[in-house]
């Protein structure tokens, strides 16, 4: 599938929004954490997994989804959340642990839930595979439209939960797509050191499911392949597995010294940063003008600024709110 101009600009916009969002989160995260880096401190405590470099995966896939569709995301969820259209203000507030966040600060950055757009994520690798199947099953049983996308990392593919869900999805022909973000690392362990095969698309055959591998972190190629797979799923053709080569431009989490990365690797990836690359492509093939792109970037920045301001200004939840929402109201 080839993206229309609107779709291309939609993808670009969401990549930029995600990047701008994370840039500012990165900055604020360090508040209160210098000179001594202590995760517990600052306006955004806890772990922080940035997704910069991985935006093409999120936008290439989510370009084909609407609010009714389901996404289960990972511990590195911002780009996926933004591309799925979650409420950015509430997400920012959640990351700050404020009462105006999705869960009022109970969840935090690894537990973003926006029921309005059927978005969820979690901190256990591969934990989203099963719920994606279940949501897809719900639609299948009710004869309601909707495709579920389970994002996971290439490291997570070696978790038993992935295997079980793949089999279940294929067996029941569920409308679910497993999207593997291959950023080459699971924390400090390389794909080579963790996975017996160089590419996980070959694992699709173990379930009689189509498998795809996309090189070079290319949003157009991702759009194409994901589009076909999602269309197929919508038409009752069942699940697919898509592995996408992408780039982790930062550490596993903030504070990661990354001593395990081969020299020069990161610099080389930064050279291939997908956002400037996409901008260049859009300009060079004439899809849009620099002015159009500048406008998008400005809009993204102000949307992000607004979200951050919203989060900053929001109140903390009451301490005692910790004790509520354990069970459904």
């Amino acid at each position, binding site marked *: 599938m080839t993206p229309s101009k609107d779709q291309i600009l939609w993808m670009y916009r969401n990549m930029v929004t995600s990047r701008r969002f994370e840039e500012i989160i990165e900055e604020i995260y360090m508040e209160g954490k210098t000179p001594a880096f202590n995760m517990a401190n600052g306006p955004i405590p806890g772990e922080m997994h940035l997704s910069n470099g991985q935006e093409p995966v999120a936008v290439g896939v989510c370009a084909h989804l609407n609010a009714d569709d389901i996404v289960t995301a990972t511990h590195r969820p911002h780009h996926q959340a933004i591309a799925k259209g979650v409420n950015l203000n509430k997400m920012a507030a959640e990351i700050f642990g404020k009462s105006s966040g999705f869960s009022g600060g109970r969840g935090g950055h690894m537990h973003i839930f926006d029921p309005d757009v059927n978005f969820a994520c979690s901190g256990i690798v591969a934990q989203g595979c099963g719920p994606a199947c279940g949501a897809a099953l719900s639609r299948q049983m009710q004869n309601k439209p909707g495709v579920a996308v389970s994002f996971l990392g290439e490291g997570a593919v070696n978790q038993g939960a992935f295997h079980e869900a793949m089999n*279940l999805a294929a067996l029941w022909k569920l409308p679910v797509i497993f999207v593997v973000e291959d950023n080459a690392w699971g924390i400090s362990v390389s794909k080579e050191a963790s996975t017996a095969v160089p590419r996980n698309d070959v694992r699709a055959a173990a379930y009689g499911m189509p498998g795809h591998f996309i090189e070079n972190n290319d949003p157009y190629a991702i759009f194409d392949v994901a589009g076909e797979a999602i269309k197929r799923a919508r038409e009752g053709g069942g699940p697919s597995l898509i592995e996408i080569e992408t780039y982790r431009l930062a550490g596993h989490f903030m504070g990661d010294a990354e001593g395990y990365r081969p020299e020069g690797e990161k610099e080389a990836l930064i050279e291939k940063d997908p956002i400037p690359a996409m901008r260049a492509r859009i300009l060079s093939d004439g899809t849009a003008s620099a002015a159009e792109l500048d406008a998008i970037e400005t809009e993204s920045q102000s949307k992000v600024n607004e979200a951050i301001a919203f989060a900053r200004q929001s109140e903390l939840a009451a301490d005692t709110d910790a004790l509520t*929402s354990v069970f459904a109201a």
Partner: protein
Amino acid sequence: MSSNGTNERKLTIARAMAESIQQEMQINERVFVMGEDIGELGGVFGNTRGLLEEFGKSRIRDTPISETAFISAAVGAAQDGMRPVVELMFADFFGVCFDAIYNLMAKNIYFSGGGVSVPMVLMTSTGGGYSDGGQHSQCLYGSFAHLPGMKVVSPSNAFDAKGLMTAAMRDDSPVVYMFHKGLQGMGWLGTEAGATVNTPESDYTVEIGKAKVLREGTDVTLVGLAMGVHNALKAADQLAKEDVSAEVIDLVSLVPLDRETIINSVAKTGRLIVVDEDYQSYGVSGEIITTVCEHDISKLKAAPKRVAYPDVPIPFARNMEQFCLPNPDKIVAAYQAMV
């Protein structure tokens, strides 16, 4: 599936569970069942018998042996508006799928600040006594009850079994429904006759979180759940012959725990014995005793006692297993050592 009488119809727990699910499925098309061997076979322990015939393969789904997949799928379906009932064949198998249970099912309501609800029932069999060995005989009540976010119930008789299952299916929070194999009324597992009781034909609920005083007494409070209740009732009969009046409490629910009923009873009797087929340490028996002691020790006439499963894996050989299991004689002996 049901006979004609209304209040004089005895059902086994297995049939009571199946009838509850059947009736709820008839009135709520969102309810469906998943698990291993729950279709054609009707459940290894009989609690889904007849459902496939009535509701078909879409709503009564045999699954692969993939507990993580189908339990976490149930969570996803529940969040999407369905009301799944899933079966983990033996509680002993929780180790292959506990992440899906305690970290996902139990926490998504909290993580979403109530933004999603997780209306699902996880039913699972517990208990030994028939020499099924150390990976097929555990109760593990404490393992489930210790972790927040899931309600945990276990019926001791068919009346409660039906009402609790209906209540669980109507609850918007996840409910773990633990049924003891020795109470199911399946002959091949042995049967505790006391579990097969009159069960109304029409649907009704039994409140989750409310204990029941099954027998009133003044000298000692015996607290248990599931099979423990029957051991306690038999012990109470034995004690009665010695003119000791035992009050018997069926916890029914571990989460929420009805601490008040226990505390009130012990305030009256002054003595407490907890009967628990789960491992003794760091579990149910300690929690019940602590509930009473942290409230008010002045009411206690003697140190409370527990008749629980010792802290060893469950042996296969009949004599060794029976030696470890709680029984009425051990309860009576515990009482005698108190006075």
